[in-house]
């Protein structure tokens, strides 16, 4: 119950931040249209037209009124209308969501599986994989865009085997995620963004898993397991791995926020039509309806996934099950 109240309060705070943050940015969406900082000096937005558009989007109303309108629209399942893209925000988000989910899911799986496996191995064979640790530390310290540019140079220019932009070959009936015969094309387009995100995420999983493995190896229950004659593989997977994975689950929840930030950069770099690229364009054009919806939904997603991670940890850690819910 206390947990539910905590999540409810977080939701209210999230709504307030989502509504206020775009409006706290200097400039309004129409000023952004009329003088986009460079290329739009040819636009003529007369004062009458400006007022007309303000009224159309409800931006001439006081802030509390705008907030109430936002709440009302949300209750009706309508997230408003994009000022810069001239599309319903709900449609924009639903169009873009699958692409981002594809990148996030694949990169998390890749980073999680390979990071954890390598971390377990490095922990188990302590001292034998120091170079790998150093390389991964180096990769982990690089910003997403540096890794992305490096991959573009390597696999897009020097050995041009992968497309460097977009999510599918245009006009080749590969416009959506109805995969069919276009799976290879979709996979090829997703490869570089997924690799970039995975490479940046992987070191965190590796290092944490290695540290957790080292910690678990010193525990007396491991000695007892070995004394019972269990094979090393069984000790590693059923005992060390299972216990070392607990902080990884916590990390998954925590990394999601970072990953969503990385998605903005990576999707923009690769011209990938996901929510990250949408966020970037909406921020540039001060598109309040899109920004507030993305902030709110992004926050809700992170909260929900953290709650899921809590539940999952509870499920696999009997010590947590014994504690009363916070």
């Amino acid at each position, binding site marked *: 119950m206390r947990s539910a109240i905590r999540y409810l309060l977080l939701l209210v705070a999230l709504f307030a931040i989502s509504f206020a943050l775009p409006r706290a*940015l*200097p*400039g*309004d969406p129409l*000023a*952004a*249209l*009329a*003088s*986009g*900082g*460079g*290329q*739009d*000096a*040819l*636009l*003529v*937005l*007369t*004062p*009458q*037209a*400006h007022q*007309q*558009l303000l009224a*159309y989007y409800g931006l001439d109303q006081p802030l509390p009124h705008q907030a109430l309108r936002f709440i009302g629209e949300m209750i009706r399942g309508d997230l408003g*209308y994009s000022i*810069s*893209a*001239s*599309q319903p925000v709900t*449609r*924009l988000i639903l*169009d*873009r969501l699958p*692409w981002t989910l594809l990148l996030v899911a694949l990169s998390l799986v890749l980073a999680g599986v390979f990071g954890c496996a390598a971390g377990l191995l490095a922990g188990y064979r302590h001292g034998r994989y120091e170079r790998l640790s150093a390389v991964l530390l180096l990769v982990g310290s690089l910003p997403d865009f540096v890794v992305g540019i490096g991959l*573009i140079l390597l696999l*897009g*220019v020097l050995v*041009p085997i992968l497309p*460097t*932009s*977009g*999510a*599918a070959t*245009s*006009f080749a009936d590969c*416009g959506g995620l109805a995969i069919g015969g276009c799976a290879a094309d979709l996979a090829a387009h997703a490869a570089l963004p997924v690799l970039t995100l995975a490479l940046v995420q992987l070191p965190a999983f590796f290092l944490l898993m290695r540290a957790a493995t080292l910690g678990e190896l010193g525990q007396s229950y491991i000695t007892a397991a070995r004394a019972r004659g269990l094979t090393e593989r069984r000790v590693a997977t059923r005992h060390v791995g299972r216990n070392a994975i607990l902080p990884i689950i916590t990390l998954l929840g925590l990394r999601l926020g970072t990953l969503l930030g990385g998605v903005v950069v990576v999707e*923009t*770099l*690769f*011209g990938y*039509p*996901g929510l990250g*690229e*949408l966020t970037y*364009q909406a921020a*540039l*054009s001060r598109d309040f309806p899109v920004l507030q919806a993305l902030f709110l939904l992004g926050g809700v997603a992170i909260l929900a996934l953290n709650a899921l991670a809590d539940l999952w940890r509870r499920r696999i850690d009997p010590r947590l099950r014994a504690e009363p819910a916070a």
Partner: protein
Amino acid sequence: MLSAAVALGACAPFAGSAPASATPGKRITLSWWIDTGYPSPFSFSNVGPGGVVKETMLFDTLVWKDGRGVIPWLAESWNVQDGGRTIVFRLRANVRWHDGRPFSAEDAAFSFSYFAKHPYGWADLNSVASATADDSRTLTVKLQWPFAPFIHDVAGVLPMIPTHVWSAVSDPLRFQGPDAVIGTGPYVFGSYTEGQGAYLFKANDGFFAGRPAFRELAYRLLPEAQQPLGLQNGVVDSALSTAYEVQAHFNGGDYRVLKTAPLSIVRLLFNVNRPPFDNRDFRRAVAHALDRAQIGQRVIHGDVVVGSPGVIPPETPWYRAVSQYSYDPDRAKALLSGIGYDPATTIQLLAEPDAPDSQLVRSMLGAVGIKVQIVTADPKTRTARMKALDFQMGLQKHIGVGGDPDFLRRWYAGKAFNAFEYGNVIHRADFSALAERQASEQDPVARKTQVGQMQAILADELPSLALYHRRFYLIYRRAAWDRWFNTAGGIMSGIPLVDNKLALVLH
């Protein structure tokens, strides 16, 4: 009665257009760096000119521009009467909408009235009092006042839309679908994929002004930095760049480069309402302290066109040579000394992050004793601050200096609709009078003189200082299409791009 009539020579090719004998190609793929939205006249994105240029492939205007200037288009001729207050357009016969219905003067009159109610961001209809169809091919537009830029900035920009579609639409911003993209243009809407910025237009076989040069015209979204790579890898047939090195790398072999006129401007904006920029001698000292040629060379590395203090770029028809404020640090120091400038003062320069221009400006001004602190912000923040006059000196890069020179009135005589006046309004009666006179002057020679005088006053007052002008480079695969050309003064009201629809039509 002042009367100007222009007639369309039936067989006269347009300047820069492709010959009718050429064989249409299958598909050409062009690139743009953002998704510009659904290409109806009310839905496309106004962030940059990419959206409006795509829209012109589907929709037509009464007049258009080729490599030499304004040409008849949907209107085959026009008469300017009543001292410039009335324009009578004679429309072409046998023009049809994409759905096969005939285009008429009623549609043209409807377009004017519809856009008056539902604003179009690229044309100002404030000057229009009425637009009426006298018969199916005669359109009479009455203006509230004689407006010299009308043909160039309104008739050449406002898209004609079909009455039978739009008369039933009360909310054009949300009206999308096949009917919303019915125009008379050389290409017909095929598909648009939101987010991927992928557009496919198909040839309009019934186009009134020639045969489309390609059966399909495609646009692909490519981030700006990836456009040359996309061209190299065969993803697109042309790429747009502002980088001198990139075009130098490509020029030759399978590729060609078309340079636009220097229609993009990099200028320092002075807030003349705040000290020390309220002092003209201080502004002149700044101008003398800056080696503008060197700034341009060090930033864009080639093809530098030094900015004119009269704002209108060299190489364009309305340019007049004015005082140039040569690089003269001693003169700058003398001017500063003359006004008793306190060298302990620090001036703030509002600029984009990592702009080398601003570093060079700081260094050169520092050399004459003007301390500069660079304040960086993203474009929208800079715009908001400039609009609120919350700045001393700002650095801006933008287009919009190639078309009709009436922009000088809007920016510097306080008539700007957007934020582009930026505290630059000149409070001089002679400038205001010239600005109003040229806006209604029907005699092009007299108007050119007046615009020249305005440039001289701007150079004298220096509310802003053009550092240098930039070109855009279209890099294209020669085998794909070799008929690109530069539109006189830029497409429509001055867009310095080269994808003029005339280049994609065979005459």
